[in-house]
């Protein structure tokens, strides 16, 4: 069927801020959708609150709304734009939920808007637990014994029927938020109460726990004619019980025989047909490893994290095909974009193996539980493509950037055999390494299987890697052994470490014996047809398929690896835009990256895509084949920056700011020298290696001091120390990983923080705008509310900032972008840090100023001058719109993570509020983050002594507005003495007026809590903050954020009354 010509104007709903369970994969899917719709000549209206995405870029849609993703706001946009259709199934659960709510209200019918793709009924049948179960029963597909309940007592009585343990799954939540396995009745009560609270429809599913069964997923596509294909299947190495987002996943399945494979494939097709899905769909199965018994776990009637992975694993663009199906095409009419000749109605063949490992944020949250279960905790993931599973594992491990490049985890050296065995009992982020260590210590494959229920096939693969380690340690490094080690994905550094042969010698040996990486193509068809899309992975097999011939100059752009706190989707935005700019200038572009969720690893973006780890050796293999004209490192975050020196040593020309100058921004002494030369102030400080040195410096500077390691992003390991005890704790923590560079200790200055991104061509500078942070210095810039343009900064200070930016950019010979953090303290402007690379604010500042920052920067890097590019120089004109970037956290997902804000970044994503006036913008930003702005209600206040005076005016204002004030004893006494009628609450842990009870009953609208010092988890404040996170009650740990909320409370307009802004009109 050709395209439905009645469709003319389509609203695409994005997925909002990056949170755990909903990450960059939806920018990838949404971007593909927008591109396809535009290609078809349709008018596209886009709404997404996340400004860091590529999909919210001006060339992606005709109308773009960076607005809160709520039903009310989407309705406003619909009223303004009058789309005839909505594409709901590419914006994750968020987009789907909004579309469904509009449908259920009858709004779509009233407005005569059609839902493209799957019918609402199909979506309901897939999403609603009971409806799904009924449907599965009607088509004879087995589900797990389960029951939907809407109160805790029913949950308990059903569990008595089917026996413990049971799994609790809340309906309509992301990434299984609020779910868990209950082994005892007490746990069941706790988890189900929490899950009921989090579910949009107050439903949880109680289900028989089948942990130990294999978990298998199928990605299926169906069109309106009923044609179905499976793109690929994937097998979780971790059996059922660990969320698939937290599992190590391989594709295709490795332990299924054809009979099992086809049985599940047939079932998946039967299910998607019964649900009448039109588009992509993910079906998860549990398979009893000892029989052919299986059960359907879940169906997602939309594109998902798994579909992004499947797309990258196979080369089959699921989101693109799903979009085409949604507007009427059938699979037999859609071309296979990889071969360009065959059709989308086929099943990709994999002549390689794909391994995905999640990236967890535990190094950010030292108090958090690392145990994995049904609640997803990973912020991102890496994928590796390899000729064998062993090599896939090794590649994925080093792609994680966790300072680990093999299956050896140093910390195990100190652990006894008993302790090591104990490690296997709890699945966590290090289970892979624990298995290897136990194999090393003599446990058999079978014993490990008994302890972990992981299939012996996977354990034997790990064992192969361990055996090879032993060989490398004990034998001479023969050519055969070296070749086998390379085939198993061992980098030279690891081979050297085990064999004690220097890396240079290994390299030489490889060259002499022609043991070199050969690149293979991902072509969807195992070379059955000619492929047109060069998408490569390395192997140590014969025959290199990467073609190096071109007339154009080649430029390598390094990507930013997995999404993590501190280095998110913003850097993918920058890499992709740089590639586009290079293409426009006639260069051949090459992207190297390993993140399957992103736009940059879509084979449509660069001329060539290398799906590889971002390490010196892996990149060198590509350089050897491609021999590029140069490489750009400044857009791929710290991941790419770290490779600068290695690239230079390979003889690759670094385009843009040089390594030497980047060092001058990071190296303390060189940086001080540069600042001195420019006459710029910075907070006093020094560099140290040891605790003793740190204490000495801190006492000279006088506490509080700011402690941080060099060359990190997202404030990793950064903290404010108030005394000797704290600085000891922090320095020891930093030194847990070997530091190549000294640790910085600076005087902590209280003041206003500001930030600029700028472009410098060596002579002139262009500053899109100055951003002001609402939180004072000490809260990481990524966790601060950032306001553009500045609201409270004098002209004199703004001039100073422009002057300093110009001076330091020129002094550091910056060619391209840089980001500078300033502080204004005591009337003086100081520079805190200079980052000679792109930053997390670049996408948003580009969008609100209408300056294509990365495009300009790339052109400057290629040699053009700002004066000739045409956007002027100096500070760009101030926008008449105010844009407020607000961080979004995923605290409720990470058990026992401390939620208080500080110098180490904790947010996973961000939203933007755009308006012509400040208070409307801040209201939008708060709504965008999911915070309901209360007009009246109850506030719980518990602050440390030194904040009491400061909090008073705010509490007075809230009190006068009619809020009821609850406070813990100390704070309450203070407030009462100041004339505020306050209800005293018990900190601990029982009684009607106790904090847990108040929070669980939903009596408190928000909390103001300033944390006492230290990172310990047993303090009351910590417990209150956790309870708040888990009950989804906003808890402000910085008074500045709370004051900003008050600004929003004072805004008299409702969400419906605030205008929506099409940013293409800015």
């Amino acid at each position: 069927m050709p395209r439905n010509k009645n469709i003319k104007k389509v609203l695409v709903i994005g997925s909002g801020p990056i949170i755990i369970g909903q990450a960059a994969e939806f920018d990838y899917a949404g971007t593909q959708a927008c591109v396809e719709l535009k290609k078809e000549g349709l008018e596209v209206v886009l709404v997404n609150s996340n400004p860091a995405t590529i999909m919210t870029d001006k060339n992606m849609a005709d109308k773009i709304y960076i607005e809160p993703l709520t039903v009310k706001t989407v309705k406003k946009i619909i009223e303004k734009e009058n789309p005839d259709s909505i594409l709901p199934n590419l914006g994750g659960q968020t987009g789907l939920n909004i579309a469904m709510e509009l449908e259920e209200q009858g709004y779509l019918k009233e407005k005569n808007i059609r839902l493209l793709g799957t019918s609402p009924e199909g979506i309901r049948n897939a999403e609603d637990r009971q409806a799904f179960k009924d449907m599965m029963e009607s088509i004879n597909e087995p589900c797990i014994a389960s029951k939907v309940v809407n109160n805790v007592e029913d949950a308990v009585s059903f569990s008595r029927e089917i026996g413990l343990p049971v799994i609790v799954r809340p309906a309509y939540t992301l990434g299984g938020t609020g779910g868990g396995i209950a082994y005892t009745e007490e746990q069941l009560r706790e988890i189900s109460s929490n899950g009921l609270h989090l579910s949009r429809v107050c439903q949880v599913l109680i289900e028989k726990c089948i942990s130990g069964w294999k978990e298998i997923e199928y990605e299926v596509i169906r069109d309106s004619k009923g044609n179905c294909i499976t793109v690929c299947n994937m097998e979780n190495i971790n059996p059922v019980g660990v969320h698939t987002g937290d599992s190590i996943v391989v594709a295709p399945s490795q332990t299924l025989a054809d009979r099992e494979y086809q049985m599940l494939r047939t079932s998946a097709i039967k299910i998607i047909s019964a649900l009448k899905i039109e588009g992509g769909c993910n079906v998860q199965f549990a398979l009893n490893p000892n029989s052919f018994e299986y059960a359907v776990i879940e169906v997602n009637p939309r594109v998902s994290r798994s579909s992004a992975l499947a797309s990258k694993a196979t080369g089959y663009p699921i989101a693109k095909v799903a979009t085409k199906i949604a507007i009427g095409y059938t699979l037999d009419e859609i071309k296979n974009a990889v071969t360009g000749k065959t059709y989308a109605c086929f099943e990709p063949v994999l002549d390689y193996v794909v391994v995905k490992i999640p990236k967890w944020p535990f190094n950010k949250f030292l108090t958090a539980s690392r145990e994995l279960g049904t609640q997803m905790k990973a912020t991102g993931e890496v994928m590796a493509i390899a000729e064998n599973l062993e090599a896939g594992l090794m590649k994925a491990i080093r792609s994680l950037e966790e300072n680990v490049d093999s299956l050896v985890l140093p910390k195990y050296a100190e652990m006894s055999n008993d302790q090591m065995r104990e490690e296997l009992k709890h699945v966590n982020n290090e289970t892979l390494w624990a298995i290897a260590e136990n194999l090393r210590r003599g446990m058999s494959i079978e014993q490990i299987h008994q302890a972990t229920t992981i299939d012996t096939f996977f354990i034997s693969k790990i064992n192969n890697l361990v055996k090879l380690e032993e060989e490398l340690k004990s034998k001479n490094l023969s050519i055969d052994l070296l070749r086998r080690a390379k085939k198993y994905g061992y980098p030279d550094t690891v081979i050297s470490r085990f064999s004690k042969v220097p890396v240079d010698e290994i390299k030489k040996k490889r060259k002499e014996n022609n043991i070199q990486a050969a690149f293979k193509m991902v072509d969807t068809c195992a070379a059955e047809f000619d492929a047109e899309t060069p998408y490569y992975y390395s192997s140590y097999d014969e025959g290199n398929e990467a073609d190096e011939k071109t007339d154009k100059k080649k430029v390598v752009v390094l990507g930013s690896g997995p999404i993590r706190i501190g280095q998110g989707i913003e850097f993918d935005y920058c890499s992709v835009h740089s590639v586009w700019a290079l293409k426009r200038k006639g260069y051949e572009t090459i992207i190297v990256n390993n993140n399957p969720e992103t736009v940059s690893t879509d084979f449509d973006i660069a001329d060539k895509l290398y799906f590889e780890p971002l390490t010196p050796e892996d990149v060198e293999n590509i350089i050897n084949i491609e021999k590029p004209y140069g490489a750009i490192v400044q857009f791929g975050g710290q991941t790419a920056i770290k490779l600068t020196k290695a690239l230079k040593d390979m003889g690759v020309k670094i385009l843009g700011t040089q390594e030497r100058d980047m060092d001058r921004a990071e190296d303390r002494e060189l940086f001080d020298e540069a600042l001195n030369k420019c006459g710029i102030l910075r907070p006093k400080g020094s560099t140290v290696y040891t605790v003793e040195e740190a204490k000495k410096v801190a006492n000279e500077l006088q506490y509080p001091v700011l402690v941080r390691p060099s060359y990190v992003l997202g404030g990793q390991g950064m903290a404010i120390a108030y005394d000797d005890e704290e600085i000891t704790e922090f320095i020891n923590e930093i030194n847990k990983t070997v530091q190549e560079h000294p640790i910085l200790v600076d005087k902590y200055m209280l003041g206003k923080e500001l930030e600029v991104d700028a472009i410098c061509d060596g002579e002139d500078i262009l500053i899109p705008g100055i951003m002001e942070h609402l939180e004072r210095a000490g809260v990481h810039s990524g966790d601060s509310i950032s306001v553009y343009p500045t609201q409270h900064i004098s002209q004199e200070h703004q001039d100073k900032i422009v002057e300093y930016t110009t001076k330091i950019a020129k002094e550091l010979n910056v060619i391209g972008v840089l980001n500078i953090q300033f502080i204004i303290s005591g009337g003086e402007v100081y520079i805190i840090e200079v980052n000679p690379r792109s930053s997390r604010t670049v996408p948003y500042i580009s969008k609100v100023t209408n300056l294509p920052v990365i495009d300009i920067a790339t052109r400057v890097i290629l040699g053009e001058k700002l004066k000739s590019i045409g956007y002027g120089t100096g500070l760009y004109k101030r926008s008449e719109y105010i844009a407020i970037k607000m961080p979004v956290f995923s605290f409720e997902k990470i058990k026992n993570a401390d939620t208080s804000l500080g110098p180490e970044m904790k947010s996973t994503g961000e939203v933007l509020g755009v308006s012509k006036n400040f208070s409307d913008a801040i209201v939008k930003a708060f709504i965008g983050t999911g915070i309901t702005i209360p007009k009246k209600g109850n506030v719980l206040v518990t602050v440390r002594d030194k904040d009491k005076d400061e909090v008073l005016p705010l509490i007075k204002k809230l009190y006068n507005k009619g809020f009821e004030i609850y406070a813990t004893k100390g704070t309450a006494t203070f407030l009462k003495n100041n004339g505020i009628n306050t209800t005293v609450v018990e900190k601990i842990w029982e009684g009607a007026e106790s904090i847990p009870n108040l929070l669980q009953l939903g009596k408190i609208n928000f909390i103001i809590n300033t944390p006492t010092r230290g990172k310990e988890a047993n303090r009351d404040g910590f417990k209150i903050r956790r309870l708040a996170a888990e009950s989804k009650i906003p808890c402000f740990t910085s008074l500045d954020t709370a004051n900003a909320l008050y600004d929003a409370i004072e805004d008299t307009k409702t969400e419906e009354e605030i205008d929506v802004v099409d940013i293409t009109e800015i």
Partner: protein
Amino acid sequence: MDLGDPEDCNIGIRTAKELYEKDIPILGICLGHQLMALATGAKTAKLKYGHRGPNHPVKDLKTDKVYITSQNHGYYVKEDTVNKEVAEVSHINLNDGTVEGLRYKNKKIFTVQFHPEACPGPEDTSYIFDEFLNELNLKK
């Protein structure tokens, strides 16, 4: 002689011809499909790319639906050589348009180039067996 050329299977072609004339119900698969075509006057030719593996899309022209099939053959039946009086094309390959199935007129004979019994491979086209049995009124 070219390896795998069905035109070389003289005995097979002769047998197919005898069975065709005896009105015995037949379901031909793969080489069986080619032999029956050759027996009834059609020609075969070599494919540029052989069809191998479990992922080949085949369209059933009666229902206009596409199924994924297992295949393993290097030759195909040339459509323009099929006598329209004898048989009509029931299935085609979506990628290269070659004949994937024939339905013989006035006979209880179906032949398919792909493997509906697929082992290994997808079970999508097991309906071919149902249709065959229905035709014989044997389906329970």
